[in-house]
């Protein structure tokens, strides 16, 4: 199968990336705070399956199959017609369904989803990553050369 193009700045793609990275509890909280909950019906799933994760020999060489990861996915249709898809690592079917709902809502009303859902998720993810990087940075080795005598 030929690889699909990667639209780096496609807002829908960035939204789906942020939703998949989010903690399930954060998504549940976001949904319970969503004031005007639309009705939706399932088109496919939610269901759990496997994705074979690939690596590259030497890091940048020919691809090989590293091992599988559990993945959940869902597709829903809002009563207003928008279809949303949700994919995420793990076996949390509710999370996959919520991602699909938010993806559908994002097509209907991107600004609201961006402001109320995506922006806080991104801010939280950045803060968590920054903390992790700072903890790792504290273990950085600072080499210094001992003064050696001249004789």
């Amino acid at each position, binding site marked *: *199968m030929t*690889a*699909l*193009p*990667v*639209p780096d700045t*496609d807002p*829908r*793609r960035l939204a*789906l*990336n942020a939703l*998949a*990275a989010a903690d399930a509890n954060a998504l549940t909280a976001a949904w319970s705070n969503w004031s005007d909950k639309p009705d939706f019906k399932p088109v496919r799933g939610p*269901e*759990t*399956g*496997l*994705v*074979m*994760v*690939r*690596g*590259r*020999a*030497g*890091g*940048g*060489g*020919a*691809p*090989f*199959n*590293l*091992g*599988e*990861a*559990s*993945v959940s*996915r869902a*597709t829903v249709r809002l009563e207003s017609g928008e279809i949303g*898809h949700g*994919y*995420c*690592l*793990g*076996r949390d079917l509710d999370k996959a369904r919520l991602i699909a709902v938010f993806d559908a809502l994002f097509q209907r009303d991107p600004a609201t989803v961006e402001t109320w859902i995506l922006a806080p998720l991104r801010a939280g993810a950045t803060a968590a*990553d*920054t*903390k*992790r*990087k*700072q*903890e*790792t*940075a*504290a*273990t*950085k*080795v600072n*080499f210094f050369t001992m003064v050696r005598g001249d004789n």
Partner: protein
Amino acid sequence: MYVAVKGGEAAIANAHALLADRRRGDRAVPALRTEQIIEQLGLAVDRCMAEGSLYDRELAALAILQSRGDLIEAIFLVRAYRTTLPRFGYSRPIDTADMLIERRVSATFKDLPGGQLLGPTFDYTHRLLDPAIAEGNDIAEPVTAEADPARAPRVTDMLGHQGLMEPDLGFDPVEQDEVGDLTREPLQYPLDRDLRLQALARGDEGFLLALGYSTQRGYARNHPLVGEIRIGEVEVELDIPELGFPVSLGRVRVTECQMVNQFKGSAKVPPQFTRGYGLVFGQSERKAMSMSLCDRALRAREFGEDISAPAQDEEFVISHLDNVQSTGFVEHLKLPHYVDFQAELDLIRTMRAKFEATQEAAE
């Protein structure tokens, strides 16, 4: 010859009830929860995911709990579970150069861009048992420092620019249309490197460790040094046909080891460094290092080296590295072989009678 034998149902049911009781142990001691295993026995979980070949912490933790901590049994449980799930697809290759790094060390370069980051390592601990840990004392929050915003390039990419390092695609790149998958097609020797790497990545840590050690002790000596080990999280991206573009599914933690080996060159290739590669789910640098030593040793044919040691023997290594396969075949010996044994007993009696008859005749 097979003879159907019935019976033992009650014994089996009672044995399993007894297993459940012993697994739970003293009821006065609080029962373990999988969250505790995930949080506090994380490296056991990682090993279970790597060799179970399934990245799912909750499942691995459940398997460890169910198997009473017998990791090979836990790996078996995970492998069995994965067969029940449908395959959604193959991810895009993960990009380890774009990792959220949690540890990164090099034995070959002291000062490398991004620096040496020790991370949560056992290295430099004194290996003294610490009773305080058993007390469950409060642990201080880790120290933080300003993080270097620059990307940390892979060490092998740095040397590669100078032509002193075997390129990522090898000396003789072949156009590859399909990536081999041993979970779909039975192995047929000789293997390409993609299938070897897949087998090594899910192989038994102890087996690979022993073989890796053997290469250092002179069985397929190839002078390795760690170019780089990095541990951290990488994005897993999957092409989604219904969307028309790939999305990230989230991040997985992996350990990568780039082993750098001396190579005196051949008629066609000038002297330079060759490489062995290790990539493993979770945090496990012992496994990643062993894998990279074995990967390099198994490339002997590619480099025109003599194949003289076990670690270089592809069929030997790949056929015996899977602990689920190995345990199945070894442990089946305890199952009823009554008829086999009767046949062997008859044979031995006949041979013994013949032997004794010859002895008597000679006297």
